[in-house]
């Protein structure tokens, strides 16, 4: 039985871009963010599961979520607590806004220096950007080794972890000393569901900002006596950092232009599923040597 570890899961609340329906686009062709539900980034859930597996393997280990985002991102911390996480920290401040992956990684790494985990687990990538950059960039900022595309943990103790990675054309097992960071693929096991007892226990877990918003003496009193219901909320002043490296001004990449997608219409021939239509189309394809 190994020593207990302190595990942090990097997670993000994202708009659900996978199910963009017709109402998700406004009349002017821009994305209607309000129509997209905010969800726990799918691969971050795979990451949470791996963190919980480590906690199961090394009893006494703790799992905390670290997320950067607007106040409502506390939702995913609560969701993670229902599923087995011990708590979480919400990094929220206007000064973090507009960050590209590098400025995001910088802010997260400064918070992580304060938390001092043994292992960091992150999803491979978020569905709103698909960049897969924040994990490796956080590892570099901390000077830690990284293992990307993890599918499962083969062995772990307090000194070393062996991870199976899924590559484009194969698999690879690597051993890595702790502390380290790994990112998890969607091909890894799905996250366990919320546990009813945990939902009862943690449903009033709130950030200080949420408590203020609620103005409910009952919930405030409830949380005051129970530290496990406190979701921490950190702003720029809570982490040691250089402000010029945060947010928009700390981002080397800038968005020059955003275009809504308008597909170039070309003259298309309209057909129905009727026999005559299909037969003449196929005859044309054969005659033009597109087929055969």
């Amino acid at each position, binding site marked *: 039985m190994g020593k207990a570890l302190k595990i942090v899961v990097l997670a993000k609340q994202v708009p659900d871009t996978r199910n963009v329906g017709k109402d998700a686009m406004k009349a002017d062709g821009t994305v209607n963010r309000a129509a997209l539900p905010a969800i726990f980034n799918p691969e971050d859930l795979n990451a949470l599961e791996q963190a919980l597996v480590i906690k199961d393997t090394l009893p006494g280990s703790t799992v905390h979520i670290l997320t950067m985002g607007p106040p409502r991102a506390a939702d995913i911390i609560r969701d993670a607590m229902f599923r087995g996480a011990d708590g979480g920290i919400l990094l929220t401040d206007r000064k973090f806004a507009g960050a590209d992956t590098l400025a995001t990684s910088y802010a997260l790494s400064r918070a992580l220096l304060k938390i001092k985990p043994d292992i960091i687990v992150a999803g491979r990538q978020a569905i709103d950007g698909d960049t897969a950059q924040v994990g490796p960039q956080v590892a570099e900022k901390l000077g830690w080794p990284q293992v990307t595309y993890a599918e499962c943990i083969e062995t772990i103790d307090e000194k070393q972890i062996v991870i199976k990675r899924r590559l484009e054309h194969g698999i690879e097992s690597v051993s890595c000393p702790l502390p380290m960071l790994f990112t998890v693929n969607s091909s890894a096991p799905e996250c366990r569901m919320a546990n009813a007892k945990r939902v009862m226990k943690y449903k009033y877990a709130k950030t200080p900002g949420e408590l203020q918003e609620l103005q409910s003496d009952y919930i405030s009193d409830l949380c005051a006596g129970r530290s496990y219901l406190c979701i921490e909320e950190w702003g720029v002043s809570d982490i040691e950092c250089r402000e010029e490296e945060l947010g928009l001004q700390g981002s*080397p990449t800038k968005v020059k232009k955003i275009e809504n997608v308008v597909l170039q219409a070309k003259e298309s021939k309209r057909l129905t599923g009727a026999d005559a239509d299909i037969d003449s189309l*196929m005859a044309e394809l054969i005659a033009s040597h597109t087929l055969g």
Partner: protein
Amino acid sequence: MNNIFVYIETENGKVADVSLELLTKGRELANTLGCKLEAIVIGHNLKGLEKELALYGADTVWVADDKELAPYRTMPHCAIVCGVFEQEKPQIALFGASSLGRDLGPRVSSALHSGLTADCTSLVVGDHEDTKGNKYKNLLYQIRPAFGGNIIATIINPDCRPQMATVREGVMKKEHASKPGTGEVKVIDHKKYLKDTDLAVKIVSRQIEERKLNIKGAQVIVSGGYGVGSKDNFKLLYELAEVLGGEVGASRAAVDAGFAEHARQVGQTGVTVRPKLYIACGISGQIQHTAGMDQSAMIISINTDPEAPVSKLADYVITGDLNEVIPKMIKYYRQNSK
């Protein structure tokens, strides 16, 4: 100094297609910018590779050759790339958006504090003026779909160098340069960049499969989207593909739903294809998908929704149920082809 660098991936002594595609694009950019194209290759038994890289336009080939450096591991490759970049100060650095490039690229960009844009679908040189009136000449426009493919963003790195981008295999064309580069080899004194801790991650075992599935090479692709409805309904697509001598592709939504395996995914986060004929079945046509197939010579869409965005790309739009249309296509082709 201030040239374009391409990181060259190798596997078993062979240069990856994506690296040759990037050299082809890099050559074009270097000609536009009037600078040199340099390749950096790190691994073992690399002798002679410079000849092939020169054919694709590489003027210089930086080589770090050592048993310790193959197979790829993040930290030593990152340390060497950063060491060379700090010395040579490239203006642009390109990496494949492969599992290797997407592991290495972000780490290098963080170490050098330079911006990186993932999965670019187009790279163009252009100028920029910011809101304060500062003017920039000859920046790299890094163009990519974003937000699940609902928008196309043009990203620039005005102040930080190198301007870094990753590009997926198949997105750029692979072509010999009209005039080969000189391919001059520069040996990297890699030991001076490596620390002991860079070698702390060890590869315990490794199984690399030969590529079995290669939809990129298929002349005919029958592709299915979420609208196909189920894995079972995909069988019809396989049947049509087999009859026509083609392969089956899928949209991201179909792959996410488990209808088809990831190797068949066409689009920004899958493969880019340019077949003679692309038959899109039950695919709505989000840019995420169309970015990977809009160069097809001919596109047929089969969809119950005549207004699906893919219709705008298609040469033929068949409005109907694919479960009725596809069997008719199969039947006609079986009866009428030689």
